[in-house]
């Protein structure tokens, strides 16, 4: 029988080897947040005259957008990166004084002969009558929300203005996609993502604590999934550092999926450990964990393979926009399978032996 548990120091070393570079690159600022987090504009557009990226960039700089970055992407489209587009504030203004456009101007038309008819027919349809309630109509009071009048009308939207300026130079345009995110929305996403991840992990810890009647199982599973999160985030820090790969809002979703998968794997092994402890009560904890890992190994690898198969299909055939999402999943799922076998279960053994030693020492001193 293979001795997996006995070599656990090597697994810890290996885990350190794959997490430390990632941590270094995270510290070096390798993580490149997308506009989902920083705010900004990404605009995929092409023009009739098919200008080069440099031409459009120069035009944008001339239009007071010195931050513009333009790259060529597939299908003859250009991808333009800008700061978030600022929109004017609208609404909340008291209705302006009667200003109908000339074509619609009311004119006091002489009334034709009035046809008196008996009123009072009760109809379910709407009707207008003078109101009986002699409510004294208050003299127009300034509305409480009155504010210094902002520009009355905005000639087109800020995006439209930019498009028109560029079309004047490069001909008709076709926008394939446009995404502009204000800085406020972006910055709060980071905070809420971290909270979501942390509380999600806390739920898992509590559930495992409850189910396995020991905080060790919960803690070991958490260590394993933190390992997986570091591997994925670290991989993106490295990719960001060298290739400028960005992570977006979906990346957080991918991390959550990885966490779920990693915990699945850990639970399956833990469950076996719990069962084997009852059956082989005499054996050492290390031996029991060893059995359990070997018995569940087939399942762990097979499940990983099916998930990797679907994820790889998505990565290779699916849309470009979710490539970072699927790549994060792929890395995380492989890491999750590894960590549940070679970290979570091994930590249980280390913990057990450490506490056994401590108990022995304590009873020896007594």
């Amino acid at each position, binding site marked *: 029988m293979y001795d997996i548990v006995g070599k656990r120091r090597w697994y810890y070393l290996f885990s350190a080897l794959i997490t430390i570079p990632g941590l270094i690159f995270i510290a070096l600022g390798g993580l490149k947040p997308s506009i989902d987090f920083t705010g900004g504009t990404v605009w995929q557009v092409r023009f009739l005259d098919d200008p080069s990226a440099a031409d459009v960039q120069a035009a944008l700089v001339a239009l007071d957008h010195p931050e513009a970055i333009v790259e060529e992407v597939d299908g003859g489209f250009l991808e333009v990166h800008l700061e978030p587009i600022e*929109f004017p*504030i*609208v*609404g*909340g*203004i008291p*209705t302006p004084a*009667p200003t109908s456009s000339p074509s*619609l101007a*009311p004119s006091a*038309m002489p009334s*034709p*002969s*009035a046809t008196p*008819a008996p009123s009072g027919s009760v109809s*379910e*349809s*709407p*009707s*207008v*009558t*003078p109101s*009986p*309630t*002699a*409510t004294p109509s208050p003299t127009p009071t300034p509305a409480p*929300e009155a*504010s210094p009048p902002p520009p009355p009308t*905005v000639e*087109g*939207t800020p995006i439209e203005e930019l498009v028109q300026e560029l079309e004047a130079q490069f001909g008709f345009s076709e*926008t394939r*996609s*446009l995404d*502009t*995110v204000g800085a*406020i929305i972006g910055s*709060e996403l980071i905070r*809420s993502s971290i909270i*979501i991840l942390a509380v999600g992990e806390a*739920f*898992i810890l509590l*559930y495992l604590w409850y189910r396995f009647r020991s905080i060790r199982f919960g803690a070991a599973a958490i260590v394993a999934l933190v390992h997986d999160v570091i591997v994925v985030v670290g991989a993106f820090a490295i990719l960001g550092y060298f290739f400028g790969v960005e992570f977006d809002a*979906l990346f*957080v*979703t991918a991390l*959550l999926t990885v966490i779920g998968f990693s*915990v699945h794997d850990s639970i*399956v092994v833990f*469950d076996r450990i719990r069962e084997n402890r009852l059956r082989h009560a005499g054996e050492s904890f290390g031996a029991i964990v060893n059995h359990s890992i070997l018995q*569940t190994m087939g*399942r762990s690898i097979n*499940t990983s393979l*099916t998930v990797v*198969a*679907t994820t790889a*299909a*998505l990565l290779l055939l*699916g849309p470009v*926009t979710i490539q970072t999402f699927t790549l994060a999943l792929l890395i995380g799922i492989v890491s999750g399978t590894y960590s549940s076998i070679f970290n979570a279960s091994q930590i249980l053994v280390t913990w057990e032996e450490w506490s056994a030693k401590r108990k022995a020492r304590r009873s020896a001193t007594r």
Partner: protein
Amino acid sequence: MTWRRIAPWVILAITLLALYIDIPRKSTGATFLPLPDSVRTVLGLDLQGGISVTLEVQAVSGEEPTPERVELARTIIERRVSGIGVTEPQVRTEVGANGQARIVVEVPGVSDRNQVLDLVGSTGQLFFVDSAGAELQRGQSIIDLVADGTVRILFDGGEIQEGSVVPDTSQTGQLGVSFTISPEAEAIWCDYTTAHQNAYGPIALDGEIITSPLIQQPICGGRTIITVGAPGTETSVSQTTLYNQLRFGALPVSLQVQEVTAIQPTLGRDFLNQALIAGIVGLALVLFFMIANYRLPGVLASLALLFYTLVVYAVFRLVPVTLTLAGVAAFILSIGMAVDANILIFERMKEEIRAGKTLGPAIEAGFNRAWSSILDSNVSSLLVAGWLFWQGSSVIRGFALVLAIGVLVSMFSAVVVTRTLLRMVIHREWGRRIELYHVER
């Protein structure tokens, strides 16, 4: 009747029901077996293309607008954008993490972002219309009507005096809304209502006729009341709606666009097609893997997986769940994870056979022993999904919903469906041949 006896029939019934729900009606033109309109596949903006605008409600002079006003602004915007997209737009309010209220507008299937931005950012325009007494159909375009000379504008909502609009009841006990108008408008209104007593005085909002009230008496000075009907009866326009529109023809809060996302419908369709191809390839790989690895049980697990796919899709259509790209990706991924329970069970089954059990008891032991692992891992997934659904933004909520539906259906398909199929099979002579179970010794 025990569960074992009825289970196959229950599964068959669910399969047929899911198929019935899944078959697309509109695109195939299938008119047989009608379905209610509420049952449909709802695609997110990123898959059907369209425009999403997030507006942040601004404090005016340091004063936060009340939730009622924000809701009112939402209603006004919803009215404005309804009808310009291929499918109905969604307008909802959210509270951002910075505590500011937001209005999120999603208009699927359109590519003219300026049309949407103009509608969202314009102040509402109300018109009283001279139709020469004719009753006008709700929803007619005021621009068309003016252009072909059917109507004239009498005056606009700006003539309604600030703060004079109140919900009211007429002498005959009808519910309505009353208001006063400016002296200039009053003269015009007096002429029109005198001339067209017992005829109609239509009202248009944001370019469309919204109601054509009957003029019961000339209105010359004082308050005008527009009634909508007796209390408790069904009316063409509700008192609250009319009140809101008269009182707040213009947006009642200040808004600033914070986020705009526009995706060309063709691009969205490309994404959907690519995702579907990836899904089919992924499903085929999993089916192949299961059959190659587990033989007969693998075939049954594959049937259960097809059952899973049908049922999950049916649930998506029933709820309906808005499928974004992330949601579709989660669904495809869940196909890989759904067989996890089967793999657990089959691996356990093989172990029991190797340990000397005969087929029948080994199958039962496989299911029973694997159950606690399946339960624990799925409950932890459901906990995370529940937390995400409760806490997350709309994108994450969609993902969590897909995840939760997937987990619940996969527990049923992997455990109940596979088990029932296996029990049926081992009653047959051919189904008991051990080589069909691919047990390596």
